[in-house]
């Protein structure tokens, strides 16, 4: 009897405590902001938790509605209008549609930010790049983009220098088809099918796209008549048709209960300039990639869950060169196959603490490169790069999110990353008198430690203050290491960034939203590649070292107001100052670093009509300072590789009409560069022959029509 009484009392006390907790927690929910409620991981009967994202320095969310109303026509349109981002298109292969972020730009390949699509990392293994030409997503497929700015290597590993872009294409059950035409032979076909039931959903996005590229006279790019003549061109020769783009894209994304499957195929053929102006019909870069992704979540206990992910990546590049002469028969192939396994555990012991830890192994099990340039010296003919070992990197990360109170929370985390050593073999100039095998090995001795810390104070629904600190790393790419071996350079180390940021958000009413950010970035061990002319061999050699060092201080101010329901005004100004701290270069201001960036969006909607103006301003930019350049007098000197690019502004216009004569049919009229301003990007080392800079599009008209099903 006493024993039974004891058990009854025990149950009652526990029951009362649980009830008391239940009510308190429900009341806590009412005090949270809508954004916080949307960030809560909930438990349901059948679903499980997965890893938590860190709270970023600043996050920009763009949904399907905004993409439609602003009239964005490509992923690069969207990225160009993110505060702090600016595009430089040098028409190099992987580096065209490259982006600088907060005053920092890496010429060559776009690899300062990680891009994910439906959770799948879009990295190219050979160059560690996130080329938009390879990612190739039609803008009509995008349901939502989250741009998380700030170093977040803790969760995303090497390359997340300035943050991550998460693109979601499988979230909204919309089916549609559309067709677009414009000048410069712009054309696009898009089809989307999406079905949702309670247990199963799928989305298919597919697209065909083409344009003819810009049509400019080569004398816009360079005054070097001798170089053009040597390249088989004249000052009056034009780029017409040489910078064409043809793209195909297919994606299937499906989810059944806890299992998620994603398949993507992307095919791009684009005209480029690869170090020299092309001979007609142009040099073309072809890229094909296939990605298969599987994810499964399982709830082990009520507060413990596990998620497993598997990714298979295939990437293939192929260049067809036309340089210096017609039918130059120069080619370049690059193929890679890799897989990635990730295992995450989420544990929430109580309502204050939330933890996620994970292990990731990325394995490149096939990598091959070959090139043959008969027009160049024998050393550059019939060469293969071979990697006999798998190239493996392992990482462990852990992140904790702790709520001190309703108003105060912290996020802290770290990542340990190790790139295992791998062999490199270059079979140079096979079957020629200068045939030679060069072998080497790349290894990093230490395990890299990457920390992150964030403190968020939200006194009410109307404002919050964030302090963030983080580090990120960027490993040298495999092809950078091969290049070092070829040129007998030193072993390259990872580059580092360390960021401090203070971010304040204010929303005193639903019609006003303001934010201000102050930040400081310290970049070290940056890989600097310089073209050095070797007078003995009379060739240019790329010499890379970890000598780069920079510091950036900046401020961003943004304001969005809705004076009336139909009208949205949004503006953002970014000012930054970057100092070059590289030894011997402290008096040389860094290239590709505009001090001022401005963005303005005006959108008005009335019944079925909406009109938008999107404007952006990019300040002046200098080019790279190099130790060995050839001036007009054909002498080797130190100096900038090209002329500074002038500040420019661009205004785009969009008119959209829903239910155009028929229900669910829309008409969209877009004008890029309404005022036809000259947009000139500063020359980069990839195409330094264009010392006057490379050109963006002039005024471009696009008419689109589509139907929702």
């Amino acid at each position, binding site marked *: 009897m006493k024993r039974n009484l*004891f058990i009854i009392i025990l149950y009652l006390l526990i029951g009362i405590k649980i009830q008391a*907790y239940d009510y308190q927690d*429900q009341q806590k929910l009412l005090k949270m902001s809508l954004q916080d409620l949307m960030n809560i991981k909930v*438990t349901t009967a059948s679903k499980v938790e997965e890893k938590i994202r860190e709270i970023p320095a600043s996050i920009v969310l763009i*949904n399907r509605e905004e993409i439609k109303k602003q009239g964005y026509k490509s992923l690069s349109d969207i990225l160009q209008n993110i505060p702090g981002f600016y595009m430089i298109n040098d028409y190099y292969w992987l580096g065209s549609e490259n982006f600088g972020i907060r005053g920092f730009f890496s010429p060559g390949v776009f690899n300062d930010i990680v891009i994910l699509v439906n959770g799948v990392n879009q990295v190219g293994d050979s160059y560690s790049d996130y080329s938009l030409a390879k990612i190739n997503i039609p803008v009509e497929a995008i349901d939502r983009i989250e741009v998380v700015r700030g170093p977040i290597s803790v969760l995303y590993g090497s390359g997340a220098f300035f943050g991550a872009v998460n693109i979601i294409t499988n*979230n909204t059950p919309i089916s549609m088809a559309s067709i677009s035409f414009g000048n410069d032979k712009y054309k696009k076909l898009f089809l989307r099918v999406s079905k949702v039931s309670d247990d199963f959903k799928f989305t298919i996005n597919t697209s065909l796209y083409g344009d003819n590229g810009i049509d400019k006279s080569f004398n816009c790019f360079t005054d070097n008549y001798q170089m053009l003549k040597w390249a088989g061109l004249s000052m009056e020769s034009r780029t017409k048709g040489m910078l064409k783009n043809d793209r195909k894209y297919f994606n299937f994304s499906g989810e059944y209960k806890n299992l998620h499957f994603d398949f993507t195929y992307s095919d791009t053929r684009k005209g480029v300039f690869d170090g020299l102006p092309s001979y007609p019909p142009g040099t073309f870069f072809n890229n094909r990639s296939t990605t298969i992704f599987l994810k499964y979540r399982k709830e082990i206990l009520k507060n413990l869950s596990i998620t497993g992910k598997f990714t298979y990546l295939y990437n293939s590049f192929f260049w067809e060169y036309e340089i210096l002469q017609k039918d130059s028969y120069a080619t370049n192939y690059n193929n890679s196959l890799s897989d990635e396994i990730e295992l995450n555990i989420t544990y929430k012991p109580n309502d204050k603490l939330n933890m996620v830890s994970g292990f990731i192994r990325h394995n490149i099990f096939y990598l091959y490169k070959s090139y043959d340039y008969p027009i160049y010296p024998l050393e550059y003919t019939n060469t293969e790069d071979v990697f006999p070992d798998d190239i493996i990197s392992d990482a462990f990360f852990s992140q904790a999110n702790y709520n001190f109170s309703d108003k105060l929370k912290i996020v802290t985390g770290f990542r340990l990353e190790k790139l295992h050593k791998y062999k490199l073999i270059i079979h140079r100039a096979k079957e020629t008198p200068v045939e030679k095998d060069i072998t080497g090995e790349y290894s990093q001795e230490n395990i890299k430690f990457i920390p992150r810390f964030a403190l968020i104070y939200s006194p009410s629904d109307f404002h919050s203050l964030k302090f963030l600190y983080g580090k990120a790393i960027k490993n040298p790419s495999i092809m950078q290491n091969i290049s070092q071996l070829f040129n007998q350079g030193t072993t390259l180390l990872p580059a580092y960034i360390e960021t401090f940021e203070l971010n304040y958000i204010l929303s005193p009413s639903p*019609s006003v939203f303001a934010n201000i950010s102050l930040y400081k970035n310290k970049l070290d061990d940056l890989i600097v590649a310089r073209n050095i002319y070797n007078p003995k061999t009379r060739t240019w050699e790329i010499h890379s070292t970890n000598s780069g060092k920079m510091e950036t201080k900046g401020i961003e101010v943004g304001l969005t107001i809705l004076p009336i329901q139909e009208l949205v005004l949004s503006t953002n100004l970014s000012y930054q100052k970057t100092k070059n701290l590289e030894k011997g270069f402290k008096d040389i201001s860094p290239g590709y670093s505009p001090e001022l960036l401005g963005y303005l969006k005006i959108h008005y909607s009335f019944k079925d009509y909406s009109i938008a103006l999107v404007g952006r301003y990019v300040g002046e930019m200098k080019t790279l300072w190099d130790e060995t350049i050839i001036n007009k007098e054909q002498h080797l000197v130190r100096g900038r590789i090209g002329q500074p690019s002038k500040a420019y502004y661009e205004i785009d216009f969009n008119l959209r009409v829903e239910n155009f004569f028929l229900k669910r049919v829309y008409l969209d009229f877009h004008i890029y560069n309404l005022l036809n301003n000259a947009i000139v990007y500063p020359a980069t080392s990839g195409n330094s022959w264009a010392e006057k800079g490379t050109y963006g599009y002039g005024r471009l008209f696009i008419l689109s029509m589509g139907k929702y099903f």
Partner: protein
Amino acid sequence: MRTIKIVLILILIFFTSNLFYAQYDEYEVKAAMIGKFTLFVDWPEQFLEKSKEFNICIYGDKKLTKMFHRIYKAKKIKNLPVKITNISSSDQNIEKCQILYIKKHNKKKIDKTLKRLKSKPVLIISDYKSLVSKGAHIGFYLFENKIRFQINYKSLKDSKISVSYLLLRAGEVINQ
């Protein structure tokens, strides 16, 4: 022995209740979000002026109605005391609801209800995305175990319920 039992009770109360404490239940969060929506939404003035209470009506789920009662007990929305009601489709008072939340439904009956409430200033919130395309104003769904919502902007405009652009930005907007 007695001391051991007391210590055991205390341990069980203070530590195991943390184990039993679940993460936030999906419907608790949705209930809270519904309250937040009212900050970004305005009903026609004359519709609210006539009401003495702010009516949140739960369609066909008594357990959920009880939970809403607990959460919104003694609370106010738009300066009106909140009243939680469980209703069915045939209920005459359905048009007096400021918010109608649909969790479970019978397909035929709900189509009738949506038809009946078309262009009426009743904010219809559903757990089914499929209802949003049929005329419900907001539909919850889960994405990576977080709650998201769709908004049928045209249906909202037809009902003369005005919505803040900030809510439209937070959700996924579809037009019909």
